[in-house]
């Protein structure tokens, strides 16, 4: 196959490993990892995750694609993660290029590098990884010997801020498509097509977005459309969806990490998509429609995963697992299958109702430590606005049931900065928590351990709230202050919040257009990395980048977009129409005004 352009001195790698924290992040060679002979496959790909190993190894997309690509004898897929700061320094000092974990070959020597784009605050890591790999950042600057740089994951539903850095994106679910696509890329290369010819040739395939074939049009500085530069691709790119989960590839031999990862357990997906339609939740829209795995498939797959990994816990994963149609039967069947081997089954987060608590009760035979719920907002009015229709009575009933069943703590998720939110709604979080505490102190005589995690609302593309402005930074700080003061006087509560500046950036990039690409590059040059990690995040550096490029963050995050304006992601079709989002957005605000009329 290809000549090795960038041979790596493996002694250097081994020496660096003895000098860094958590060297196991860079070892590869874990149980169920797959090392193939590079000379015996047609196409070599790397799955690149722009965050630490522990985070990336918890990503289900990685496990799915790794196993389904490597099951083909003509293809191979290796992995790479963002090196931590200490490793990055040593790599630069020793001029060691970024290498894939399995073969320790340089990324530059692969055919395809596929980035998993899960959250906006990992974008600077994408650039840093390309730079460490000595691959030109911009698609337009890459030569024929460079790999194709592609992207997938939720962020590709508005990939515009990243567009110039990527050769193409795949929108939606790639597991039934990627192996064939990789083989096709190899075939096109074999026919001596150059990069541009290859990109043009695949640009008309469903779910493929080649950004260099589209040019955004601006009128008076305002985005007004997309011009196609090639006749092949379609005007609107449709996401790809798996029709039947039972037939789609699912990993039964996922890699078992040496070190503890964020989600260090087996995972079986019950269904994909979510029928709830909470108006702030992007996942609820981009993963539609709801598709269920059959109980038979779930049980067989779960057993196979446990046999191949030796995990002692399996998570029944979905956006809202307790909504699985035959969940009760499933749980009792799972308990039966795993009784002897003492494998625990767990649910990621629970709907706030008694039924869900009952299910959790059936699941956990062991110690009952804590349950996770997401009321999101503390007043019924605001919950109605965001489409989370649960009453305060539901909340108390569910919590009471959980306490009665022996749980000793809860984790509660709230959001601030939601559309139509007032200070009173924020204070209501305190009131609700105070009530919960009093209620259970009276009832049980003991106080519960309650963790309250409050994030900041971010208007996301492809949601009814995509037009909504984000709450301004100073106001977010004020509302966080209300909570911080309130919780200071409430023992038993552990309050945590998101860095407001980081949430601002997240909104900027979630709703951004291509003009943000140079900003991203500038921020990276200034040293921004791991922006999602508070110990690395530097707002000062970002502010300097915004100033240097004369870009106003507020025009992206704080501006109310109009229904009739062209949105940066209007050429991306997530399967839900703009009309439906407008209708839902209007409904949210009508809910609000009718409620106000009554009171």
């Amino acid at each position, binding site marked *: 196959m290809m000549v090795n352009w960038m041979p790596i001195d493996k002694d250097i790698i081994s020496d660096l490993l003895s000098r860094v924290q958590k060297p196991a992040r860079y070892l590869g060679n874990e149980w169920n990892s797959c090392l193939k002979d590079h000379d015996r496959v047609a196409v070599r790909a790397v799955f690149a995750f722009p965050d630490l190993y522990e985070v990336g190894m918890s990503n289900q997309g990685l496990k799915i694609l790794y196993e389904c690509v490597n099951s083909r004898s003509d293809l191979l897929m290796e992995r790479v993660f963002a090196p931590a700061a200490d490793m990055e320094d040593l790599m630069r000092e020793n001029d060691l290029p970024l290498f894939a974990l399995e073969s320790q070959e340089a990324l530059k020597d692969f055919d395809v590098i596929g980035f998993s784009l899960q959250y906006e605050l990992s974008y600077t890591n994408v650039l840093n990884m390309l730079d460490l790999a000595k691959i030109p950042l911009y698609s337009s600057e890459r030569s024929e010997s460079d790999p194709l740089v592609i992207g997938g994951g939720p962020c590709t539903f508005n990939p515009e801020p990243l567009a110039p850095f990527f050769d193409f994106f795949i929108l939606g679910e790639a597991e039934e498509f990627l192996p064939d696509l990789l083989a096709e890329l190899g075939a096109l290369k074999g026919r001596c097509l150059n990069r541009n010819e290859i990109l043009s040739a695949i640009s008309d395939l469903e779910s493929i977005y080649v950004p260099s074939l589209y040019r955004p049009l601006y009128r008076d500085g305002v985005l007004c459309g997309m011009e196609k530069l090639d006749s092949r691709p379609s005007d609107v790119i449709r996401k790809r969806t798996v029709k039947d989960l039972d037939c789609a590839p699912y990993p039964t031999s996922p890699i078992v990490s040496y*070190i503890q990862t964020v989600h260090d357990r087996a995972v079986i997906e019950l269904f994909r998509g979510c029928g709830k339609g909470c108006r702030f939740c992007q996942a609820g829209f981009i993963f539609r429609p709801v598709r269920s795995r059959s109980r038979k498939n779930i049980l067989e797959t779960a057993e196979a995963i446990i046999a191949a990994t030796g995990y002692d816990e399996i998570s029944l994963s979905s956006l809202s697992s307790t909504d699985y149609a035959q969940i009760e039967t499933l749980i009792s069947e799972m308990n039966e299958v795993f009784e002897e081997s003492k494998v625990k089954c767990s649910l990621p987060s629970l709907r706030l109702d008694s039924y869900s608590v009952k299910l959790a009760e059936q699941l956990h035979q062991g110690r009952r430590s804590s349950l996770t719920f997401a009321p999101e907002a503390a007043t019924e009015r605001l919950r109605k606005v965001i489409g989370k229709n649960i009453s305060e009575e539901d909340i108390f009933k569910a919590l009471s049931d959980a306490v009665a069943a022996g749980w000793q703590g809860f984790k509660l998720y709230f959001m601030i900065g939601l559309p139509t939110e007032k200070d009173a709604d924020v204070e209501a979080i305190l009131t609700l928590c105070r009530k919960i505490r009093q209620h259970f102190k009276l009832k049980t005589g003991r106080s519960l351990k309650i963790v309250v995690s409050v994030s900041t609302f971010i208007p996301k593309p492809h949601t009814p709230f995509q037009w909504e402005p984000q709450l301004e930074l100073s106001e977010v700080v004020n509302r966080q202050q209300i909570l911080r003061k309130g919780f200071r006087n409430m023992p038993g509560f552990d309050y945590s919040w998101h860095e407001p500046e980081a949430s601002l950036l997240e909104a900027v990039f979630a709703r951004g257009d291509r003009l943000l690409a140079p900003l991203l590059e500038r921020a990276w040059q200034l040293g921004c990395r791991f922006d999602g990690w508070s110990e690395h995040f530097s707002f000062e550096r970002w502010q300097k980048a915004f100033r240097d490029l004369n870009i106003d963050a507020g025009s992206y995050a704080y501006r109310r977009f109009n229904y009739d304006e062209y949105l940066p992601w209007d050429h991306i079709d997530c399967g839900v129409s703009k009309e439906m989002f407008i209708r839902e957005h209007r409904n949210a605000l009508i809910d609000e005004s009718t409620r106000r009329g009554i009171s």
Partner: protein
Amino acid sequence: MNRISFSFARKLPLAYISHLDMLRLFLRALRRSRLPLAFSQGFNPHPRLTLALPLPVGVTASEEYGEIYFTEFIRPEDFIGRLRPQLPEALELIDAYIVRPEAPSLASRIEAALYRAILKNGFEQRLTAESVRDALERLLAREEIIIQRKTKKKKTASTNVRPYIIEAVVKKEAGKPMELNLVLKAGSQGGISPVFLLEQLESDPVCTGISAHDWQLHRESIYVNNDGILQPVSEGM
């Protein structure tokens, strides 16, 4: 209840994981092997597995020891036969034998360990065996070597670790890298990490610039106290 003690070697890539990671690795391998694990009692039952004397991260070992309980009788050769295919290459299962249920745990009998510190490539020219020997002598001549340790209550306590250094010698054979042989006290009665000793050595003017990770550390054997005599575990089996 069946109790089995086993020994294993730990080679390089696997030296980079922590003691807890190692426990998890064994547990998962044991689960994959479908051997009949015995679980502890209580709300959160867990398999009864212990690994003696945690190894510092980055250190390889010739002979480590573990103990595990099963619900039914397992022949040591079956234990090895079923577990071995579930372990990574860098973890080599050496031996296994049955232990009487009432016997004291191996961990409680450990007294000391022998480490080898092998100077990595590229430092040979900067150090002679004689100068390192002198530096070691200077270190061992001290009556006290004080180490600050964090106690459980977030306080620090100072300990004199000089008595924990039983032996420290330099070895240099022609054509081979220089190495130190260190016999250090270890186990529940107190002990020190070889990394600490190498750090102390670094502060000697002769060794300036040669840090602890310029030596590849290896644990050669673990010693137990057999009627007042230090003896490698393997000899007492």
